[in-house]
């Protein structure tokens, strides 16, 4: 049943389809218009359900929340296995990138297992012990708890290397990275940095290879500087030595974050790095 209105006599009437003439004043059908009935009205009429009542509103909210909660819990628990595997694989890829491998062109899991070993540094006895716990994907809290992970590895060029995980803070959130150093613990072989959410096009550039490749072959130490000398300085400042790396233009705070991350991160491993 639809409603029609005649524009000549102004009468409204109901019919199944458009009539040929107005049943009241006999005007031609060109003067008759179909009246649209809002869908909300028809819905309430059809179901006889009062969607405005308090009981309905409360029940609707409760049911909706329960359904959504179960749905999200189900999705999250059924996918967490695959997600963790992805994160683990990605972390291994990051370590391999620091070692000079191109993670896009290799099978990350296989190459990692062949070339990298996870160790713990024993501060008291000054020796590395194999780590056989669960592979970690973040190292900030581990270092704070005194659990110093050191990866012994074979770099992409075949030379033996150590990889040290570091964490820090940038402008908007956390930063982390892996620094590969040679066996003499003097020179950087490669780095990998990434961030939670630095500004795209500015701070986020620390996650790109051109910034990271600047570190290759740079010394950790310099004469006259105590502790780790390797640092990041404002782009364009004259260098005092090869241990100073150009920061990202327009992202001073992120660059400072990287500098602090290197200083504090490697600083936490001082007993390992200074142990010849």
């Amino acid at each position, binding site marked *: 049943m639809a409603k029609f209105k005649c524009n000549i006599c102004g009468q409204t009437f109901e019919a199944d389809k458009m009539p040929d003439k107005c049943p009241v004043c006999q005007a031609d059908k060109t003067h008759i218009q179909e009246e649209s009935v809002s*869908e*909300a009205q028809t*819905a309430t009429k059809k*179901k006889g359900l009062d*969607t*405005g009542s308090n009981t*309905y*509103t409360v029940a*609707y*909210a409760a049911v*909706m*929340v329960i359904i*959504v909660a179960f*749905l*999200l819990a189900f*999705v*999250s628990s059924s*996918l967490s296995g*695959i*997600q963790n595997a*992805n*994160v683990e*694989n*990605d972390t291994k890829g990051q370590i391999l990138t620091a070692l000079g491998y191109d993670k896009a062109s290799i099978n990350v899991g296989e190459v990692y297992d062949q070339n990298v070993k996870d160790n713990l540094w024993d501060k008291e006895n000054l020796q590395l012990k194999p780590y056989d716990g669960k592979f970690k994907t973040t190292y900030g809290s581990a270092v704070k708890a005194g659990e110093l992970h050191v990866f012994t590895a074979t770099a992409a060029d075949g030379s033996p290397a150590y990889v040290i995980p570091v964490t820090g803070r940038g402008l908007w959130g956390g930063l982390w990275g892996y620094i590969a150093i040679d066996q003499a613990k003097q020179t950087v072989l490669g780095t990998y940095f990434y961030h*939670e*959410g630095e*500004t*795209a*096009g*500015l701070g986020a550039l620390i996650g*790109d290879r051109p910034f990271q490749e600047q570190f290759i072959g740079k010394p950790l130490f310099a004469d006259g500087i105590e502790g780790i000398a390797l640092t990041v300085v404002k782009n364009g400042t004259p260098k005092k030595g090869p241990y100073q790396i150009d920061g990202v*233009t*327009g992202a001073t705070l992120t660059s400072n974050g990287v500098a602090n991350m290197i200083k504090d991160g490697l600083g936490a491993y001082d007993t390992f790095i200074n142990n010849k």
Partner: protein
Amino acid sequence: MKLFSDENKAAFSNPLNLNNPVTVQVLGICSALAVTSQLKPAIIMGLSVTVITAMSNLVISLLRKTIPNRIRIIVQLVVVAALVTIVSQLLKAFVYDVSVQLSVYVGLIITNCILMGRLEAFAMQNGPWASTLDGLGNGLGYAWVLVVVGFVRELFGSGRLFDIQVIPDSWYAVNGGWYMNNGMMVMPAMSLIIVGCVIWAHRSLNKEEQ
């Protein structure tokens, strides 16, 4: 009912041009500011908003007759938040690289005013198919503005497109050339000025339609 009746076509094509969410309704420009310093995040953000707008429009349109009027905004918000969470979980599980690139933008999608605007203005009154088209149209209407802004900012701000250098090194002043990147372009405020220019151009092209 035809799949592509005139009304459905209009639901899809109006937001691309004459009723564009960004240039005409000036919605969603907050996120345009955050993600447009490069072309790639702008495109990813545009596509994600398109998918989420279409899907939430569809769900709300299917539920529209049952939603209690007084809590409809809350219902819409729950649907959007649930959808975004599920999509981001799926991305993390099956296309991990994309989810890393999206990182913070996923959260920005929930707060995008275009979404709530379309749910309230269109999906609550129209059928599922028309609503889906409307969502796609509005998402793409938002995406093209983002892409234009991202293109201008990346090209003039850092001389690159999709992270690939397009302005020859020899043009740069440091190498003896005449060219310099415009540092203003990478600043967030510049995106609003460019959006303003896009709105200006768009409105003067469509003067008679207003």
